[in-house]
């Protein structure tokens, strides 16, 4: 192939970006990647830091914690401790990918392939993203949230708003529906319905807390009734709908934090898959680009160098070790699936009879669409990969003096390793199981949360602080009971709201 490469310097220009993008888009199309339209945005390092510290969103409401994040990022960047992330991509339609001004041309091409095609197609097709997030309206919703919160600051004072936001942030991981699909977001509807909702919500709350005496026969009926009748896992939702003292605008803020947490929930569940998929595709797309003669050897060397850095996995005893690198695990699993399809050996046929020798594009597409980290690892982690990573499982039990190696990468250990690793990515067991258990509606209006112990893992000490925030939102006493596997209450934390 004697095609002339698109460029031979590392400087980028708008024209070059466009040319590379055209080719990458064509190749991605040939591989059958289904994507949202792409919008590439060139930004400076400072802007990257801005984006970075507001959880990667182009617009967002303001809060001191984002300022802290920014100050931190800026300091680390200036000290040179950290290269900036070279890509931020937003799950929106069109899909917005940021290209940083300082990057060289090969890096820009890598980001285009990684973010604008890899992540983009994942956002568009993975079942968690399609059910839980709405790419069409997220930017609009964030804009609504930003303006609404700004308006509240002007009307009710910055401090009052900050208090509510602090409390909501403390509970934000408990502001998601894990099983029920949330309704789609839309700016217009939000705006038009928000007023109605304020009025309606307040009336509902008033109904629940009404103090006019009820007739005798009703009362006996109510005595037995529990509220809520089922435990509720979405604590913020419960507070939004039922907290007795919140003002309508405060309920709206609770809702905003909850909605945004919900939007990020799929990302937290698909880190390995999402990064793995994007890394696999930037690797495949750029190699194809090279094979077709569009880029030079120098380009490839620069690309491969950063690719290698990204997928590097230090071993557990290295000073650089900070857990399993999701890029490394994801990329290797994705590449491994392709290998099993194209080039299976006997072991693969035994472990993966249904995919060994199948069409790799279809198989990977299926895997990308229908799994999250936990199930993806449970389904596709191969013995070969466990050997490559030299995985071993350790049991750390506070009842024992020593920790114990429970499985290693050998025939007896494969199943258990896979099981353990899969469990490690299960948000359901990684986060404590805390649900709204009971509200004393006829008595002191106190709220009881119940923490069900899992593997005897206790709550961190900061639970006290979180409880204070919960009490602030609820407005009355809040209790947190810890229940062991047999249903016995073994510990209770209590907190009273500070009345201002």
């Amino acid at each position, binding site marked *: 192939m004697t095609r002339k490469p698109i460029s031979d310097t590392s400087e980028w220009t708008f024209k070059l970006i466009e040319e590379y993008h055209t080719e990458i888009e064509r190749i991605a199309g040939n591989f059958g990647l289904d994507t949202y*339209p792409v919008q590439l945005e060139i930004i400076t390092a400072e*802007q990257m830091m801005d984006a970075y510290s507001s959880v990667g969103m182009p617009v967002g409401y303001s809060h001191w914690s984002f*300022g802290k994040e920014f100050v931190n990022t800026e300091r680390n960047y200036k000290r040179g401790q950290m290269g900036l992330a070279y890509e931020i991509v937003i799950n929106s339609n069109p899909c917005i990918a940021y290209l940083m001004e300082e990057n060289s041309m090969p890096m820009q091409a890598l980001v285009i392939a990684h973010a604008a095609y890899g992540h983009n197609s994942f956002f568009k097709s993975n079942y968690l993203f399609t059910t839980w997030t709405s790419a069409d309206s997220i930017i609009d919703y964030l804009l609504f949230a930003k303006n609404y919160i700004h308006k509240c600051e002007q009307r009710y004072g910055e401090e009052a708003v900050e208090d509510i936001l602090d409390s909501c942030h403390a509970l934000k991981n408990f502001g998601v529906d894990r099983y029920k699909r949330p309704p789609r977001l839309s700016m217009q509807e939000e705006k038009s319905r928000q007023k109605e909702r304020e009025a309606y919500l307040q009336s509902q709350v008033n109904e629940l807390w009404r103090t006019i005496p009820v007739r005798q026969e009703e009362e006996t009926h109510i005595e037995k009734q529990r509220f809520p009748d089922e435990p509720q896992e979405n604590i913020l939702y419960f507070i939004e709908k039922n907290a007795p003292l919140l003002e309508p605008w405060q309920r709206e803020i609770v809702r905003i934090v909850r909605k945004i947490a919900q939007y990020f929930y799929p990302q937290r569940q698909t880190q390995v898959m999402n990064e793995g998929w994007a890394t696999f595709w930037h690797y495949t797309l750029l190699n194809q680009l090279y094979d077709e003669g569009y880029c030079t050897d120098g380009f490839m060397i620069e690309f491969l160098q950063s690719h290698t850095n990204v997928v590097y996995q230090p071993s557990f005893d*290295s000073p650089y070790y900070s857990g399993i690198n999701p890029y490394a695990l994801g990329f290797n699993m994705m590449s491994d699936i392709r290998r099993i399809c194209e080039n299976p050996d006997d072991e693969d046929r035994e472990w993966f009879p249904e995919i060994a020798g199948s069409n790799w594009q279809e198989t990977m597409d299926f895997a990308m669409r229908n799994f999250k980290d936990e199930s993806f690892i449970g389904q596709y982690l191969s013995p070969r990969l466990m050997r490559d990573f030299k995985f071993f499982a350790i049991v750390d039990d506070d009842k024992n003096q020593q920790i*114990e*190696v*429970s499985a290693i990468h050998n025939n007896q250990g494969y199943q258990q390793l896979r099981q353990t690793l899969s469990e490690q990515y299960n948000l359901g067991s990684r986060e404590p199981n805390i649900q709204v258990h009971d509200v004393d509606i006829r008595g002191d209006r106190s709220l009881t949360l119940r923490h069900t112990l899992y593997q005897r893992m206790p709550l961190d000490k900061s*639970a006290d602080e979180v409880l204070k925030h919960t009490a602030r939102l609820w407005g009355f006493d809040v209790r947190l009971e810890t229940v062991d596997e047999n249903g016995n209450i073994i510990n209770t934390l209590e907190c009273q709201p500070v009345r201002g």
Partner: protein
Amino acid sequence: MTQIVDRRLNGKNKSAVNRQKFLRRFRQQIKKSVENAISERSVTDLDKGEKISIPQKDTTEPFFHHGPGGHREVVNPGNREFQTGDKIPRPEGSGQGSGGGEASDSGEGMDDFVFELSREEFLQFFFEDLELPNLVKTQLSSVDEVHKVRAGHTSDGIPSNINVIRSLTGALGRRIALRAPYKQEIEEKQQELEDLLKRHNDTDPVVIEVKQRIEQLEKKINAIPFIDTFDLRYDNRIDQPKPTTQAVMFCIMDVSGSMGREEKDIAKRFFMLLYLFLTRTYEKIQVVFISHHTIASEVDEETFFYSRETGGTVVSSALKLVSSIIQDRYPTSDWNIYAAQASDGDNWHNDSSICSKVMTESIMPYVQYFAYIEITADRHQNLWEEYTDIKAKWDNFAMKRIENVADIYPVFRKLFKKRNP
């Protein structure tokens, strides 16, 4: 449909609001850091930012998560020698725990949260309890004015800045240089032509050929442009801080036993504020520190703020020293002289009249401004009486009794007013 959008020109300070919120939230801690910084800094060293550190535990946001303990099983990469069933002692303080790479869960033993406060932010905090009016705040934190000065010539600029003489000199030089080779050849050809004409007649092809060549060369010479964009030279002007005159600032402080650490801290703020004012007005400032008890001496800053003497107080000794230093080193024709005196007002009673004399005769006529603060919660001391007389006579004298730093500003009120007619 793909779009490439250049966002670089969009505002880059999107996080400024969040940063302000962050600073506001940790005001107490930051203020404390700033106060410490001020007591460690020199009087003349206010114009830079400061590193602030806040305990990490204050800045973390709480959320429900698992603490250490319980039964956990975690997968790690990089096994070398472990076999199933191996028992290993529990590693000390390792991040063994929550799995998934949240190694720093415990929230203890972590470093402080350290960040840089910019110069403006630092001054904001410095001004905070001095209770300066806003106008004065902006005046003090504004960066020096600049003006344009000539700085040679450049090869590009705006038409109105074209330097005609330079440009034409350049053009002339270029013309001469470019013409030289042709000129030389023409001369050679003319010589040749003369020789040829001796042997041939006018219409001979050889003669015609040489004539044509000469014509050609002349055309080339004429084609050299009289002036080219390349020749243009523009006057270059660069920004230079506005040249202002120089000033000297006398810091006079009573270091006798009655001045405690707290009084000295207030005095320091007082001197700093005057210094800051001077830096906005004068380009070059010298600071002279004079400490006194019964005798006065010129000292360095370190000694000035940190040494402690005992014994009585003779204020006139310091004033005499100031006067003699002015005579020797700072002629009023070259220097603007400012003086700031801090004392607890205690003075040897016979000395006060001498002070008054020295002030009226050899200090007040020469200084721009003399500010005196009496740092005491008790009743006025004898020096105050003498100074009250001086205040009545001299417009450029200000005095004030001070109990805390918020009282400092009024001493300078007139000083700051002068600049805002």
